[in-house]
């Protein structure tokens, strides 16, 4: 610092030289790369009788593949089977919450123990949804029991009243021209509140508040290990690479081929959680969101390989902001959907939409505006949920006020 201050008094020759080369070539392997060579200038000071500052250039090469494919010594380094397992579990549990054939114990087992699924591979995966629900360092520990309570409410109150007519205070069945749903005493269709809540509490929270944050990526010796390319025991990846991939997996884990070149532009929407709405929002209110998020995952991963951690975090910030916007958009959409449906007199269809909205409102506390701050805190979300709790009596003005607050906060 002192040296730089002195410089201001002396004659300085300033030379700026920028060269840009474009080259293109064909490759015949499966991975496409953009190679960016960034040359950095470091000024080294040697002090004698004369001070001379000698520029030294450092070159950092970042190879960014077009697809989400990374390899080391010819072996793929991307793995997210644990995320795929949990997303498949969510699908099965969602189905279970839409029938009257599962016991409470069975559904709680599926959620908390990761067993009891029709897909035997899930039962032996060792993965569980429950321990990844509202489990990030930023999540409130009070949320996970809310999901247990939904399952219990469904089993204790909705299933026994499967054929009872639902009304205010009475769980049961609700039918209109559009659909038939089974609701609890407050009109909640629990498969919807549950799965839309899980989108925030598990998939979003695990990505934006856990795996792509320094809390996970830089924990313990992971930064040093990644810089030195010290691999995880028995694996072809570093811990940091793997953590990033696990974040990727919570969004893309049910893609049949997550290495395809057009994954960024055309997510399949497979499954019942985040990817489903990622596709929808990309195709409607936020065109281009999908490619932005995909590119950020792809580049962030390449920057990890190249030890460029600040650039990695820039990409993480994009992912946090975009996926959070998705949650806000769906909360708004379903509240609007409810109001037009209830105006048409379709109570079942309206309650179905509001159940989805309720789950997405619940998910708002897991958003991340890019500064590791949610749009709304746990207590703010709980206040929203309390105000809209009874679908039979909730006023449109209450929902409009929630909707407008969400729009304002998310800037949508």
């Amino acid at each position, binding site marked *: 610092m002192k040296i*730089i201050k002195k*410089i201001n008094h*002396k004659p*300085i*020759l300033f*030379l700026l*030289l*920028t*060269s840009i*080369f*474009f*080259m*293109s*070539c*064909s490759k*015949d392997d499966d991975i*496409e*790369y*953009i*190679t*960016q*060579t*960034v040359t*950095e*200038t*470091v*000024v*080294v000071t040697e002090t004698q*009788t*004369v*001070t*001379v*500052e000698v*520029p030294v250039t*450092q070159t950092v090469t970042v190879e960014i593949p*077009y*697809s989400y494919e990374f390899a080391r010594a010819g072996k793929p380094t991307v793995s997210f089977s644990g995320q795929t397992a949990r997303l498949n579990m969510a699908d099965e549990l969602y189905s279970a919450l839409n029938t009257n054939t599962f016991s409470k114990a069975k559904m709680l087992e599926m*959620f*908390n*123990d990761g067993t009891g699924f029709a897909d035997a591979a899930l039962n032996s995966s060792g993965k569980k949804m429950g*321990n990844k629900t509202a489990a990030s*360092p930023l999540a*409130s*520990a*009070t949320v996970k*029991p809310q999901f247990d309570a939904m399952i219990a409410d469904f089993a204790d109150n909705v299933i026994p009243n499967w054929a009872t007519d639902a009304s205010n205070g009475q769980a049961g069945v609700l039918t209109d021209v559009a659909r038939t749903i089974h609701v609890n005493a407050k009109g909640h269709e629990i498969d919807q509140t549950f799965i839309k809540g899980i989108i925030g509490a598990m998939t979003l929270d695990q990505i934006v508040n*856990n795996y792509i944050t*320094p*809390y996970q990526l830089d*924990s*313990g010796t992971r930064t040093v290990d990644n810089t030195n390319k010290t691999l995880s025991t028995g694996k072809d990846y570093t811990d940091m690479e793997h953590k990033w991939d696990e974040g990727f997996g919570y969004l893309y884990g049910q893609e049949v081929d997550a290495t395809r*070149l*057009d*994954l*960024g532009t055309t997510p399949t929407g497979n499954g019942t959680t985040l990817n489903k709405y990622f596709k929808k929002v990309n195709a409607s209110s936020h065109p*281009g969101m999908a*490619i932005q998020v995909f*590119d950020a995952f*792809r580049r962030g991963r390449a920057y990890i390989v190249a030890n460029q951690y600040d*650039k990695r975090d820039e990409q993480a910030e994009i992912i946090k902001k975009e996926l959070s916007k998705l949650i806000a958009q769906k909360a708004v959409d379903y509240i609007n959907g409810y109001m037009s449906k209830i105006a048409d007199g379709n109570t079942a269809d309206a309650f179905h939409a509001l159940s989805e909205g309720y789950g997405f409102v619940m998910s708002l506390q897991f958003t991340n505006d890019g500064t590791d701050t949610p749009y709304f805190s746990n207590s703010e979300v709980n206040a929203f949920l309390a105000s809209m709790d009874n679908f039979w009596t909730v006023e449109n003005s209450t929902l409009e006020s929630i909707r407008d607050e969400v729009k304002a906060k998310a800037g949508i």
Partner: protein
Amino acid sequence: MKHLYIKIFLAVLVIVSCSKDSDEDYGQNSSQSNVQTTTNNSTGSTTGTSTSTSTGNSTSTSTGNSTSTSSSQGDTFDRGSILANYSENIIIPRYNTFKTSMDNLKNSIETFVNSPNSDNYDALQSDWIDSYKKWQYVEVFNISKAEEIMYGLKMNTYPVSKERTDNNIDEGKTDLTNPNDWSAQGFPGLDYMLHGIGETKDAVIELYNSESKYGNYLLTLGSVMNENTIQVVDDWTTYKDVFNSSFNNTATSAFNMMVNDFVYYFEKGLRTNKIGIPAGRFSSTPLPDKIEAYYYSKNSFGNLSKTLALEARKGAEELFLGLNSDGVEGPSYKSYLDYLETEIGTNVKTKLEEASIRIDDLQDNFLTQIAENNTLMLVAFDALQTIVVNLKTDMLSNFNIAVDYTDADGD
């Protein structure tokens, strides 16, 4: 003499774009032109164009004398002043206070075993409570001799293993150095010996009167705890100078280890063990039998879990703020954060006060609190967790210190 300064900023951006000629999916790509922005427009049309924008002009960042780049810290704060304040005004005084209490506890054990009667039982129980509370102020210092002999784990591993302890009682075991015996000694071991071997005070005293094996094992626990304490306290007379002067930013410096010990203790010793595990934060359902001082509550002798959690929080707060026993602030993690002109220190201070309120909201009896309204336990957990994030990521990154332990996250 003329000084010549030449600064050259050289930015070279080379973009090599390689197109793919796999025949399976995108066969026509192989004949693409060599203009970077159009190379992959038939594949993922959006991927190729924008990749170069973020990198080219971030060049001249790493200026500086190349000899000093790997040195300890990026600021000029006197880290040694924190160590001196901690050791002289906090650590050693706390240990001395604890040792006095430990001496009393050992004496009470001997008196009770010699004459297992109601008065001696009450005196012993009272000393157990007093020293268990004071223990909360020293468990965090897992450094030097304490770390070497696993002092913290020997003094306060809970839940106590009933099976292991019963077995040790029957065997008359006196060597408790095996790690499997950590859950059969220390304060939780005493809890079981005073409140767990029988369900009432009379029943417990009766056991000591009828069978000497109980008294023998109680004496063993007292003497093992006391010997370990003496080792650790004595060590500080010589370790203090080493500690005070070991403030370089290396993985093994006292400064780095101490700050890691503090964060680790706050996360595991306080947040996880006292609140998180019993409240079921890490399991599918609450695990009330894992509270600290479990048998004391279970068999309705009294309740101590909340008191211990409050004491531990207070101890952490005083350490963070650098308070001596008279409540006067000295150099501390807080003052270092303030020096770095970040709000983190102030935020943590506020959150520590909030956490005190949230813990105080709980019933004295954690077993009934968990059974009746576990949400309040989870709210208390949240109040501590938000501090963990500040300490573990924000504070340590401001200090430019790496976390020396890793979270197992189950994947």
